[in-house]
């Protein structure tokens, strides 16, 4: 009698403990396993408000030494790809990519993220969504996780959010996560910095005038095969700005009209760059040559 009583109490304690663990897991983010890490789909708001936008996050946590890729992966690898399964009335936007890091292995330079990163995806909820009490969000993610070797992963994520006509309210459990992720997003570069890109025979020279001397600058091209990823980027600090010489990619055979990418100054200030390429320094001015369209990012597979 006493035995069964204590065992009942024990099982109650177990249930309580399990419930606590589940709650804690929900609060801290229990990720779905991916190769050498976890991935979780999180929402910035507690519910979906029809007629409003909100943000979702793909929160990657990787084991030490492993990395995933930026939208332009650099010399090898591939970026994560998302196929959304959303109810009608929820429209996902493009992934907002934080500034990447240069990941060098021997003569190869990749662009990506180590340790932990969150990719933010803005979503717009149409007013038609109001007819549903809840929204079931699904996403199939394909991700390549690399260290010395690469392991492709494919995982299914899901998240259920209530639909309410009340004004949007942030979820305290994900507030810091989103705030930290937004800090790493590149911002539009101030117009008065006067960015210019001069094309020479073997290089592009990116120059700007932010009003202060710049001692550290790294450029990440949005399009593949424009610059040589592994070549050193040569910084020339000027009194109120800088010149950054970027070696052209050997695979760049046609002229480009604009140079787009992310410029990271002083290690942590990331700016979006979209500057026209002038041929002032070019050897010949071939105005008849066709300008080929910049592929700003890989197309998402439509499935």
């Amino acid at each position, binding site marked *: 009698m006493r035995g069964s009583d204590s065992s009942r109490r024990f099982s109650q304690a177990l249930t309580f403990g399990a419930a606590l663990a589940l709650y804690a897991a929900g609060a801290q983010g229990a990720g779905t396993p991916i190769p050498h890490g976890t991935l979780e789909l999180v929402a910035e708001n507690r519910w979906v408000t029809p007629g409003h936008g909100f943000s979702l996050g793909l929160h990657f946590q990787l084991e030490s030494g492993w990395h995933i890729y930026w939208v332009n992966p650099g010399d090898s690898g591939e970026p994560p790809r998302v196929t959304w399964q959303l109810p009608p009335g929820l429209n996902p936007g493009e992934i907002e990519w934080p500034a990447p890091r240069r990941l060098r292995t021997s003569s190869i330079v990749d662009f990506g993220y180590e340790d932990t990163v969150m990719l933010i995806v803005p979503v717009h909820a149409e007013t038609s969504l109001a007819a549903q009490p809840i929204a079931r969000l699904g996403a199939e993610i394909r991700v390549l996780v690399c260290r010395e*070797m690469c392991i492709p992963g494919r995982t299914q994520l899901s998240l259920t959010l209530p639909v309410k006509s009340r004004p949007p309210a942030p979820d305290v459990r994900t507030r810091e996560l989103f705030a930290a992720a937004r800090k790493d997003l590149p911002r539009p570069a101030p117009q008065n910095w006067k960015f210019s890109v001069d094309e020479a025979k073997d290089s592009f020279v990116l120059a700007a005038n932010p009003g202060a001397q710049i001692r550290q600058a790294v450029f990440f091209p949005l399009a593949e095969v424009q610059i040589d990823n592994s070549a050193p980027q040569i910084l020339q600090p000027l009194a109120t700005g800088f010149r950054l010489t970027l070696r052209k990619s*050997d695979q760049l055979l046609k002229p480009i009209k604009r140079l787009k990418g992310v410029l990271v100054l002083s290690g942590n200030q990331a700016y979006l760059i979209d500057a026209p390429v002038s041929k002032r320094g070019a050897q010949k001015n071939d105005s008849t040559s066709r300008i080929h369209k910049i592929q700003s990012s890989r197309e998402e597979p439509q499935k």
Partner: protein
Amino acid sequence: MKRSTLYSILVAVVICTAPLLVVAARVGQAAPDFTATASNGKTSHLFDYRGKYVVLEWHNNGCPYVGKHYKSGNMQRLQKQWTGRNVVWFTIISSAPGKQGYVTASEENEYLAKMQAAPTAALLDPTGEIGHLYDAKTSPQMVVINPEGVVIYDGAIDDKPTTDLSDIAGATNYVNLALEQAMAGKQVQTPATRPYGCSVKYPGSAY
């Protein structure tokens, strides 16, 4: 004794870094020459194949992007198709000893037999010298050289940079395009692309 050890280390460093200083192959320019030992024990010398089209295929049997093209039989089909049309096909393995994809000659011969692969030869490049000469970034990176010894294609095998076998069916194969266009006397329409895949596991890779 000590001095000679130091000297041999210095010599080794110079030898190891020398290939990095060589100007890499570029589309429209002469393909750099090389001599290599194949897994079948024979020595292959690129310049001996003047007068023929030559395909270079960077290989690493542990790379999932390479796996996509071998498990599907796509690479073997290409090898048979083009060697059947008198094209020379070299599979090149530039993985350093101890790194992913490194194989001994007998291991490579076993792999070729198991996969029913049909290159002209599989060249062993454990020092990465040929890889650096062609600035090979990934496996499977593909290079096509014309009978005059000029690089006419350098880049990806196709336009689907994924590890999914199901992506092969709808892909545009750049090697086929380059060879078909060049053999028809036409300009190669897409002579350079970003090579996709796993980084080549050269000696001294950080990780």
